[in-house]
């Protein structure tokens, strides 16, 4: 990799190192306990597609929080048998927070037979310098009944923004998949973007969507000659290419260049600026295969297609994938896999509500080992061919 490019990438990706909150300490398997009205828990499971909140008492590793709001969450991962949960600490108790967080996610891991892909993926993002949510595994008990193996996932919200992006005054959008979208311009009407598919998470009452609309207008409307200059004004391009590179190195099927359009990200507009940054989310479907084309579906998204159409940026992207692949290999990821596997195996095997058998879980771990072991070689071969 040319030294200048490396330096550019490194400088662009210098992100503050996250100080892990104890509840996201990956060295331990956490204990999360929920106590709530049994009728409410049943109702949450029966009507798992609803966003109805219920009151509950929550404890994480013995630290108790009273009267939090919990509801079913997720898109494709919603389940009545093993619900994914969103915890809202100040739903009923004004100003209540937990370690500075107002919300928390309990991911039900129903879309990942190995039950650890997202944890490994976020480790790769962090290693490359892309801030990713903190995550750790936990046993979940509801009304004294073991309900299954989950992950505690840091919500992408103001505490995350302040700690990892350096500010929190801007507009944060959660991309909620509603239809296949390739970032094509959908007109000047804000309702074409907000709240679907980009749901505001901050400044909801005072949102000015002009910058957001302008973002999509400019990445679509810029001429070939002006595109790089235009997109550089909107994005930290090396950083975004690194983001795409990590998704590609991870063989992500449902990311920015997803099979059914863009998915699984947050978009943050810096306060008072027209600059944006993408934040990764929900990486349970990555590491699907050890063989994954270097430019897989890059032509399916306006932004990615136009970026790699520029020879200089194409090179930057290829270099970024090579760098990312250095963390998707046996040296980096397999120790993490084995550590996690040892930590969660018992909890996974006794998780009676996971939608796969114990044999399938063990096979999934075995398969994941194989993907990780072979992925770097596949990437490097494609990088050589691309240069």
């Amino acid at each position, binding site marked *: 990799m040319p030294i200048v490019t490396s330096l550019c990438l490194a400088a662009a990706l210098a992100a503050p190192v996250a100080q892990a909150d104890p509840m996201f300490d990956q060295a331990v398997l956490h204990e999360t306990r929920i106590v709530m*009205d049994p*009728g*409410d828990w049943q*109702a949450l499971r029966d009507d798992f597609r609803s966003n109805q909140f*219920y*009151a509950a008492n929550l404890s994480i590793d013995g630290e108790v929080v009273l*009267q939090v709001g919990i509801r079913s969450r997720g898109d494709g991962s919603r389940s009545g048998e093993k619900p994914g949960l969103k915890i809202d600490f100040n739903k*009923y108790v*004004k*100003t209540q927070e937990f370690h500075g967080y107002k919300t928390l996610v309990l991911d039900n891991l129903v879309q990942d037979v190995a039950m650890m892909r997202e944890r490994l993926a976020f480790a790769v993002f962090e290693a490359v310098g892309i801030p990713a949510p903190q995550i750790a595994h936990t046993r979940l008990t509801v009304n004294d009944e073991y309900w299954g193996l989950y992950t505690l996932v840091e919500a992408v919200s103001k505490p995350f923004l302040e700690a990892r992006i350096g500010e929190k005054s801007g507009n944060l959008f959660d991309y909620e998949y509603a239809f296949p979208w390739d970032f094509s311009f959908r007109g000047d009407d804000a309702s074409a973007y907000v709240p679907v598919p980009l749901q505001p998470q901050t400044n909801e009452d005072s949102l000015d969507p002009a910058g957001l609309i302008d973002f999509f207008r400019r990445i679509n409307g810029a001429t070939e000659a002006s595109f790089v200059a235009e997109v550089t004004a909107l994005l930290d391009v090396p950083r975004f290419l690194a983001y795409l590179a990590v998704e590609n190195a991870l063989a992500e099927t449902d990311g920015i260049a997803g099979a059914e359009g863009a998915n699984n990200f947050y978009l943050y507009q810096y306060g008072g600026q027209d600059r944006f940054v993408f934040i990764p989310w929900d990486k349970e479907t990555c590491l699907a295969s050890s063989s994954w084309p270097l430019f897989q579906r890059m032509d399916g998204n306006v932004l990615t297609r136009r970026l790699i159409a520029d020879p200089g940026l194409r090179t930057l992207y290829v270099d970024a994938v090579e760098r990312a692949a250095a963390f998707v290999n046996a040296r980096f990821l397999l120790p993490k896999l084995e550590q996690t596997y040892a930590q969660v195996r018992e909890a996974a095997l006794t998780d009676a509500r996971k939608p796969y058998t114990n044999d399938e879980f063990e096979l999934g771990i075995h398969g994941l080992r194989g993907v990780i072991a072979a992925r770097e070689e596949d990437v490097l071969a494609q990088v050589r061919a691309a240069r």
Partner: protein
Amino acid sequence: MTRAGTAGLVPAAWCVSAALLAASDNVRWGPGPTLSAPAAGFTVSLTGYVQGDARSFRNWEAGDEDTGLLRSDATDLRRLRLGVEGEWKRLGFEVDFDPRDEGDHLKDAYLELEIAKPLTVRAGQFKLPLCREFLTSAGKIDFVERALLATHIGPARDLGVMVSGELGDLAGYQAGVFAGDGRTRRDRAGATIAARIVLSPLKGLELGASFASGDVEAETEAPGVEPRPLGFLGEGPAGFEFYGRRFVNGRRLRAGGEGAFVSGPASLKAEFLQGREERLGQGPVFEDLPEQVVNGWAVSATWLLTGEKKKRTIEPGASLFRGPGAIEVGVRYESLRFDDAGPDSGFEGAGNRARNVRPGADRIATGGISWWPAAWIRITGNVVVERFEDALLAPEPGRQGSYVTLLGRLQLQVP
């Protein structure tokens, strides 16, 4: 009706009345903005008042509403009432308007006919006959804010027909049928009946009871639209919400008792009001939940230090520049408590579909002083001290109280 439309009712009523009077002989002006033709039995008066409030919070956080904290110290133009009331022989009317009220600009707008002393019929928009504190004009209440039982259990104005009357010197009654219990309120019940009876067994003593009953229909779910809960809300006088609305559906019942004793410059009042709301089909799987119950009570005492008689309208014995005006001190202690009517078993939840509701209550002590330098000016200052039963759901979670709010009001009345 648009704001312009409601605003136009008042001058229209005034002009029509003035025109009618102009056709009569012996028209008089005064006292105050009153036109009368005694021979014809016609009187029309301009009424109204303006209230400017200030509030300051002590001992608790005050900040941005988005964070769940209260607003910072504030002043606002609280009410701007303008109205016309008149009588013509046995016929009476009143029209009041308040452009400051975002909920309902049109206040009272009714006609009434006194058929006999024991029987007067009124039709239009006016207050449901429930709760002494609620029925007292905001310009005449003893403190800056009405007691919580009136503001959070009591109804509002609605369209209806009511009969009322006096039964000798001993009793009075009001009974009516209304289209709802708050014409512009989102949580409005359907057709509501309300009645009140007040007995005067002794001079200066009044004892009363009232009730109202109507049905509230829960909002239905629609694509992209989440239904909103319509149950009673628990809010303290400083505006802090200590009990959120619950989903309710079915009968909404209010019932209460009241007592007032006035002697010379002193008064003693006590009132109790209970609200009950059914929660039919409002559970998370559409099961029936126990009724929601809210109990409110208030006791208060006032004393006119300057010796005037305690009446509905205070008339200073010696107005400003000739004397101190009228000065009154008062204290009030009140409570508002929410719970459900079911057994206290299992998990107590703060959720809006909780079977076993986590109770919420606010107890408030208010001390106040009012000064009338002249009959048409009133300056009031209150110290309000709140204490919340549930420390977890208090303004500062974990601290029950005391939360102190200072309230000030300047009121100018049409003479």
